[in-house]
């Protein structure tokens, strides 16, 4: 089981690291996707190895995938909306509202 959990944790940490360091909004979105997928792997692995008699983790994963898809679609739409105004997707340019 540990062989599946450690990659999932690594993926999650890479996602967090990418989210914090990347300046490109699309790259940040990819990092978020990594984090969400790490969660999915966790659920499936726990379900398969710890509680093989039930399906709760699998079901959660199915729903989590759908939710992640909805989140990404919406985030992309909003990022495109910003791109139309600012002509790039760099988060450093999102600073028009300091005090």
């Amino acid at each position: 089981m540990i062989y599946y959990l450690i990659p999932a944790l690594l993926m999650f940490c890479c996602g967090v690291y990418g989210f914090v360091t990347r300046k490109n909004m699309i790259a940040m979105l990819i990092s978020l996707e990594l984090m969400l997928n790490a969660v999915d792997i966790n659920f499936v692995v726990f379900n398969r190895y710890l509680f093989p008699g039930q399906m709760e983790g699998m079901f959660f994963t199915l729903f989590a995938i759908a939710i992640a898809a909805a989140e990404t679609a919406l985030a992309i739409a909003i990022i495109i909306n910003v791109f139309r105004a600012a002509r790039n997707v760099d988060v450093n340019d999102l600073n028009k509202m300091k005090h």
Partner: protein
Amino acid sequence: MDYSQFLIMKQEIGLLAVFLIVFLADTFLPRREQGSIGVISCIFFAAFTVLGFVPGVVGEGMAFSDMYEATWPVINIKNILNVGVLIVMIQALRWADQDMVRIRRGEFYELLLVTLLGMYLMISARHFLLFVIGLETASLPLAAMVAFDKHRYESREAAVKYILTAVFSSAIFMMGISYVYALSGSLYFYDIAIAVWSESHSALLLCALAFVIAGIGFKLSLVPFHLWTADVYQGAPTPVTSYLSVISKGAAAFAFLAVLWQAFGTVYPQAWEWMLYALIILTITVGNLFAIRQKNMKRFLAFSSISQAGYIMLGIIAFNPMGMAALMFYVLVYIFSNLAAFGVIGAIENASGKVWMDDYKGLYRTNPRLAFTMMLAMFSLAGIPPFAGFFSKFFIFTGAIAQGTVAIYVLVLIALINTIISLYYYLLVVKAMFISQDDCVIAPFRSACSERFALWVCVAGILLLGVVSFVYNTLLEGTMYSF
């Protein structure tokens, strides 16, 4: 499967019915009649709100093998949120008539009702799957609402910040749940409560709890997870900001309470009391200190709402029925006071486009009624005695002190000191409006009928809620009975 279970979800069904009516009206009304969509949604939602308060219409019950629960406190926090949503909808009428927003007016009300449905599910959920679905149903349409002024740059920027932090926080939250699942093998709150009892000192539980609290802390904008709040509040259209600061926060606070008490209530002293303790102190203090520096009214209210969230958390750390009743009462009072403040800001913004605190100097001489309403709202938020805000703070402190440990006394003392600090910046606004001798840049204007009505309701709430002890007594008896 027994489909009659759906009938237990009466409030959700009612809300869906209102949503469908608004949706059909938006789709099929001829173009020249489109102006009435806002009024139609307000009328139907008002009817729905009133029905919720009629005793016997909404019954208690459990559905879907206890995934969904409607107990007395749950039903009533939904009713309280309904009142707030109704005021927000009425306040938004004028804004929704602007040229840029007009053709998408129906969408605004639809999105608003859908987010409310998500919050309902979040509050009623007794299973983490339903909880996550509710959380996402609440936060995704909200991102679309933040981006609603799509021709204004600030709105786009705010939407990006909101959606990225929202997804980030829900990823963290779900990571936490996955570890909880590993501990307990179930996602039902009751099963988790039993399973974590024997694991109360395990590192995995602490880690999972930290993730869960961080995830919901983002939604509630607790410090140190508050960094998105100021920008989003400033950039979003004013009705959306008021919705975010009041309804979204109130629902998240109650859902937080449900998660911590029902799923993790068995490990209160070992696992999450001290986590919440640190969060509350940080939230109240940092929110207050940053609010002093703000010059933009919406940004100022953003930091004020951060520190208010800290006070709301006191009801959760109390961990007794008094705390729960005080939390509900606090949310109710907070709805009226904050919506009064946002109503004034929105009215001034619609009439003159001014949102800076310097523009408010001398407002008393040009628009005395608006200035007076704003003053009442500020006094209530600060907690000055005859107004409702004082009583809500009083009850929430009483609830926390009933816990009886020395640590809680220290916590309440810190919160009290912070109330005094908050008085300074709330009074800055009052000083700008009443005492400043500068000529006011805001010309006298007459606000729209809808705005005036919403403000009258808010003022009535601020003046009466504290004095009419019936409200708090009812809440306390109801929670005591169902605890």
